[in-house]
């Protein structure tokens, strides 16, 4: 399977994504620069974490106007799988590929810690067969406080488009389990078609035993299994 990992100035998880896909899963993965116009025919696109364009203005607000984003938009419109992790999620909301916005954490602090993430909702390329599981995945962000108006939240819930939620280790929803004030404990969502997915946690940082946690592997395995079925 061919993965395009988009590098913006300030992206810093692009190499991590490429490493996991190539070294752990033996796939083809390559970086595509923000100012390129050709994604080089991938089967899926990853928008990685980091601080694109210094997070100036708003996280993702400048990256979304990068030349390559027109290609990402077209790829998504054709139904291709697009996954945005952390800053990638922020870019997808700014680009209008996903609804809502990621605001500054309610506690006003950058948070870098493991979070427990309940996988639920409809089937997406990243979560197929993983629904119902609770994964321990690191988060590292200052703006992960998901916000959308009530109407949008209601629609997301009704359509099963909340696919990742901050939960307690046993899977229950508690106020303490929500690290950043995100509406409805939302850690990740998908678009109406289900092919565009955004999440704040970093599965690429927990996909190798050497790092002490392999929970992130299950999401990548879902991505690969889905392609095999197509």
């Amino acid at each position: 399977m061919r993965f395009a990992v988009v590098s913006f100035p300030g992206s810093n998880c692009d190499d991590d994504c490429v490493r996991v896909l190539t070294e752990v899963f033996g796939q083809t993965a390559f970086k595509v620069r923000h100012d390129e116009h050709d994604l080089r025919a991938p089967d899926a696109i990853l928008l990685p974490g980091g601080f694109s364009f210094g997070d100036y203005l708003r996280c993702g607000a400048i990256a979304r106007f990068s030349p390559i984003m027109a290609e990402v938009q077209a790829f998504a419109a054709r139904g291709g799988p697009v996954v945005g992790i952390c800053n990638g999620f922020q870019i997808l909301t700014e680009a209008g590929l996903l609804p809502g916005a990621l605001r500054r954490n309610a506690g006003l602090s950058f948070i870098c810690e493991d979070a427990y993430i309940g996988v639920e909702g409809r089937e997406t390329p990243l979560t197929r067969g993983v629904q119902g599981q609770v994964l321990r995945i690191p988060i590292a962000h200052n703006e992960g406080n998901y916000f959308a108006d009530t109407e949008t939240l209601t629609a997301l819930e009704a359509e099963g488009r909340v696919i990742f939620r901050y939960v307690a280790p046993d899977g229950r929803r508690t106020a303490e389990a929500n690290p950043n004030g995100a509406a409805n404990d939302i850690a990740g969502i998908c678009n109406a078609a289900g092919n565009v997915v955004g999440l704040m946690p970093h599965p690429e940082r927990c996909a190798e035993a050497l790092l002490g946690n392999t929970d992130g592997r299950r999401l990548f395995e879902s991505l690969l299994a889905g392609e095999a079925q197509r």
Partner: protein
Amino acid sequence: MKGRITVQLRPAILDAEGKAIARALGSLGFGEPAVRVGRVFEVDLGADFGGDAEAARARLTEMAQKLLANPVMETFTIDVSTGTGGAP
């Protein structure tokens, strides 16, 4: 022609930073004011638009809608000045 675009969180949205500042003001003896934090963009349009303030306002509005504000969570106001001196 200069413009000043002020971007703020929508009134219905909790402004955690504003609340923290309000608490700090309270601890300094300023009572308990309500504080909302915003951001100001001063845009110098140079000689564009001559003295046409409405055309300048339209351009500034377009800038705010497209890039400077995120309509999901923010609103903006625009002031236009024809002066060549400092900020409007």
